[in-house]
Every structure is written in structure tokens, then in C-alpha cells.
């Protein structure tokens, strides 16, 4: 089994890239791979507590909790979050609130890196 690190920079709602990253993380974790998931740029919105579920909008918090139960490590970019008004106390439990060096370190030690660097 290998290690896969996925970085995603796309917003929670509308850009389906974040949905993609979450579903691929789940598929890889279910096969026994170690998975790290990095949220940067607009993707940090997914780290914020209190997202309300609407049928129209991607609602991924429950999926993130389920990924964490499967051992997926989730990190969110501290600076990207704070620029958007999301501070440490606003972040969902067990999401690592940290600098970009966490991500590049995880990536460096992974067998595969899928970096989704678009909106």
C-alpha cells in the first residue's frame, strides 16, 4: 500500500474539484492507502465550522469526518483561512490548521501527489 497526497485549491461550492478530491481520497483510503488531503486557497472554506446543508450546494463536512475516521489526514492553510476570516477556533476538529510547509513535506514523502492547483 502506498501514500497519496492530494492538494486542492478550489472553492467548496460550485467548483466540483473539491468534491472530486474528497471522493478520490475516499476511494484510495478504502483500498488501504494512506491519504493526506490539503486545503488551500478557496478550498479552506471547507474547514470552517457551521456550514449549512442545502440541496443545491456541495456539503462535504460529513464526508470529511468520515475520511478522518478512515485515517485520512486533513490539513488547511492557516494564512489562506485567516485572509478569509476563518481563524483557529472556527476550524472543524481534527483538521490540522497549519502552514504550507506541512503540505510540501507530506507531498515529498508520498508515493503519489495529485495537486489540483486551479479554481
Amino acid at each position: 500500500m502506498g501514500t497519496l497526497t492530494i492538494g486542492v485549491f478550489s472553492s467548496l461550492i460550485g467548483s466540483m474539484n473539491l468534491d472530486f478530491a474528497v471522493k478520490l481520497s475516499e476511494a484510495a483510503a478504502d483500498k488501504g492507502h494512506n491519504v493526506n488531503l490539503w486545503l488551500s486557497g478557496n478550498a479552506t472554506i471547507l474547514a470552517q465550522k457551521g456550514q449549512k446543508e442545502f440541496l443545491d450546494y456541495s456539503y462535504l463536512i460529513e464526508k470529511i469526518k468520515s475520511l478522518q475516521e478512515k485515517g485520512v489526514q486533513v490539513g488547511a492553510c492557516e494564512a489562506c483561512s485567516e485572509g478569509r476570516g476563518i481563524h483557529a477556533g472556527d476550524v472543524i476538529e481534527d483538521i490540522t490548521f497549519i502552514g504550507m510547509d506541512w503540505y510540501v513535506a507530506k507531498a515529498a514523502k508520498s508515493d503519489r501527489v495529485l495537486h489540483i492547483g486551479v479554481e
Partner: protein
Amino acid sequence: MKLGVFYSELRGNHDVLFRLKAEKLGIFLVSNGIYHAIIKEKGEPSPVLQKQGADYYVLSEDLQTRGFSTDEVDSNVKVVTYSDIADHIMNDYDKLAWL
């Protein structure tokens, strides 16, 4: 290198894709990239499908999300699931690029 490329948009500058070279090249059409596997604009297949020697994949879940079915897919493109993609990227490609 064995390079897996992800393509998620219908429009944009395809120029970087056209110039990429790799010992083994796989192109995964996901999100709005799936249209390249379906739409024949003015009767012509997408230029994205013209990369010689590449293996093409399209994500079944994203086809269906957009109202298309497996039997409409270009014959050069293999339909895969999230689970298949997880296997391909962990087994068949050592580097990945999301264009």
C-alpha cells in the same frame, strides 16, 4: 516518466498538453473535461483526444452527472470509476499533473 494528466475543463489553452512528452502518458477526463470524450464540435472530435500514444480515460460519475452515458463516449476513451482512478494513479503512473 509515467505521467498521468487530469483534464477538468472544456475550454482553455490546450497548448501545454499538446507539448507534453512522457514514456507513458495517461489522460484522465474529469469534471467538465468529460465533454472532450463526448462532444464532436462541428462534427470533429476534440483536439484534446489527438495526443498520439496516450491512454484516455473518462470518469463515469462525471459523465452521468452531466447527463451522458457510457455508450456515447469516443471509442478511444475508456470509462473508469473513482475506484479505477485510485488504482491507476497508485499503480501505473509515477507523476501526476492536473492541467
